[in-house]
């Protein structure tokens, strides 16, 4: 009797979940599978006699090899190394830029965000005002942020005027990367701060009091209590931000046009979409796998750590 009830419940549960599952297959499953299917096909080729594009069918792994090995087809036939100016030659550069941006921005954002969260967590006059002020950058749409910083970083913009420099912030390799990082950190550090603030507020005050009674210094309280107890929130923040940073598009695309020095994988995908959608599908699949791998590594490494510290705490 009880078993049958459970089974019925379970069946009903499936029924309730079904609409969502169907919606997910339609909006996520179909595009993903379609993209996979496309990625294994050549883009339309030009028929020399009619001057029209024709479907050239199955391409097996050609699109993947094109990106990973930088191989290009020549119009006269044969395969060659992709030259500069062909997007196939940009892949590994874009991977490097994407990873570089992800590592640097996430590190800076967590450091600055943590500082902001610590300040926002204190009780003082004007705390509500500070919290609101800190959140404003996060509330501004990224495209608008990109425009604002682009204006500031122009040759005759405010940054060069204030510092009396003549740096080409939107064109030279390292200044341009710095500009994108600055804009991203400005925009997203508040988001990290908010996540960490939530983490901080669930640490009970009496733990700190007990430590203080035992004579722990402020630094010791930070490293021995705050950091371990904040770890779950920190993990979530790092995971969210890393996945976000790995698919960064709008800031480099708007602030620095098609500058190779700031070309991330997502920028490359969008450019390729205009040249050949099947090849772009292969590139987005590769990008997806890369982000997936990064998320997997983060969860494995940081997740294991988080569990161990909890066990250690329990033992202590």
């Amino acid at each position, binding site marked *: 009797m009880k078993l*049958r009830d459970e*089974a*019925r419940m*379970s*069946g009903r549960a*499936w029924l309730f979940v*079904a609409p969502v*599952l169907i919606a997910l*297959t339609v909006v996520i*499953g*179909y595009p993903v*599978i*379609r993209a996979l*299917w496309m990625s294994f096909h050549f*883009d*339309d*080729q*030009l028929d*020399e006699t009619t*001057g*029209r*594009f*024709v*479907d050239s069918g199955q391409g097996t792994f050609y699109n993947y090899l*094109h990106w990973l090995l930088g191989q*290009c*087809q*020549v*119009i*006269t036939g044969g395969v*060659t190394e*992709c*030259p*500069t*100016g*062909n*997007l*196939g030659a940009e892949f590994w550069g874009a991977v490097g830029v994407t990873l570089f941006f992800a590592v640097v921005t996430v590190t800076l954002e967590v450091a600055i965000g943590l500082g902001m969260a610590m300040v926002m967590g204190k009780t003082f006059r004007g705390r509500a005002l500070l919290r609101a002020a800190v959140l404003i950058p996060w509330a501004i749409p990224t495209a608008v942020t990109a425009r604002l910083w682009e204006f500031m970083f*122009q*040759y*005759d913009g405010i940054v060069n005027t204030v510092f009396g420099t*003549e740096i*080409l912030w*939107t*064109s030279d390799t390292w200044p341009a990367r710095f500009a994108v990082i600055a804009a991203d950190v400005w925009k997203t550090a508040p988001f990290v701060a908010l996540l960490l603030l939530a983490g901080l507020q669930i640490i009970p005050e009496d733990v700190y009091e007990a430590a203080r009674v035992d004579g722990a210094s402020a630094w010791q309280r930070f490293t021995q209590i705050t950091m371990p107890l904040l770890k779950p929130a920190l993990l979530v923040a790092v995971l969210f931000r890393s996945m976000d940073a790995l698919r960064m598009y709008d800031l480099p695309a708007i602030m620095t*046009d*098609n*500058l*190779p020095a700031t070309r991330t994988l997502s920028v490359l995908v969008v*450019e390729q979409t*205009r*040249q*050949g959608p099947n090849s772009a599908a292969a590139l987005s699949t590769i990008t997806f796998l890369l982000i997936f791998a990064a998320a997997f590594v983060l969860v494995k490494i940081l997740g294991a750590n988080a569990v161990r510290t909890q066990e250690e705490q329990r033992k202590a």
Partner: protein
Amino acid sequence: MAFKKVPSLRAALVLWPIALLTVTFATACNTSDTDEQLGRNQDGRGPITYVEGKDTTETGAVKQVIDNWNATHPDEQVTYKEQSNDASAQYDDLVEHMRAKSSDYDVVALDVPWTAEFAAKGWIQPLEDQFAIDTSPLLSPPVASATYNGTLYAAPRNTNGGLLFYRKDLVPVPPRTWAEMRASCPLARDNQIGCYAGQFAPYEGLTVNTAEVINAFGGTFVGTDGRTPTVNSPQSRAGLEQLVDAFRVGDIPREAITFQEPESGAAFNQGKLMFLRSWPSTYGDASSEASAVKDKFGVAPLPGDTGIGASTLGGYNAAISAYSENKATALDFLKYLISEEAQHIIASGALPSVRASIYDDPALIAKMPYLPALKDSIASAVPRPVTPFYPAVSKAIQDNAYAALTGTKSVNDAIIGMQKGIETAGS
């Protein structure tokens, strides 16, 4: 019984993707029968939709043209579908509708370099046989920009050419060649302003500026088939060398590498440049009250190698969608767009006309004094490479030119890079 339900649902979940895959294969195997589609609805008449980017003319020229048409064609009304102001967004929107074989768009306005690709994809109606239009009163470079593989595919709606804006208070007679222009650069240095600038940021404007100087020195990019690369020539090297050398010695100020149209226009209007390559639309800003060079500047055709140079063509071509249901009406509307009446409205909105006669209209010249210079510029203009792989070709030009201008590649390597890039376009 209820027990069985659970696994079968799970099985269904596994089967879903497989079913989807089958559907995908089934739809994808339907290869497009382009010719059949082009043959459909050739005599269709009725209301149509005209699609173009945002009408930014002060006079609302596009709306005026459509209103005029609608006043005399009660049964064949034209609806204006206004797209975004951004060219890439317009392109993406058009491609989306064409891929979906949508009959919602009847006449589409194509930025000149897109025309060949749309033609090669079979998305637009070739203007031959019963669709032929009379192009004899039109300027020939815009007609060439709408021609792919020997066939006309669109009616040039308006054109555009680059102009040399110069400070007539410093240089009374505009230079006709690059050598003349560069020779006057010490004068700019004496006045502590930049000598020359165009648009050199890594975007489409860089392709335009590079193409102009390479064309001016006799270089080309692709053969008449739209595929064979022809850029590897001494002429192309000589052209690119002009830009690279001007950057190197400071005749082009170094910040110009960040310039798109707005930045370069602003620099000229603030009196920081002696020469500027720009589109006619800069004229309005430069002669406004806010401009520091108001009454101090003139316009001339672009400089070349031995005589005036070769501008790249801008502007829009109007084409009939292969999926339109009222192609006969669409054709009539195309003919109206290039008529004297419609072109006059377009020219009054400061969009350069495709009809030669418009440029000699004294009333228009009084309003837009740059028209004679523009006529010369357009008469000697060269369309951007007419190729179905335009995005890839443009990219190859852009990336290599940028590398040469910033000194990371030699002129020789950059030209060889362009050649190879065009060779591998479409892969």
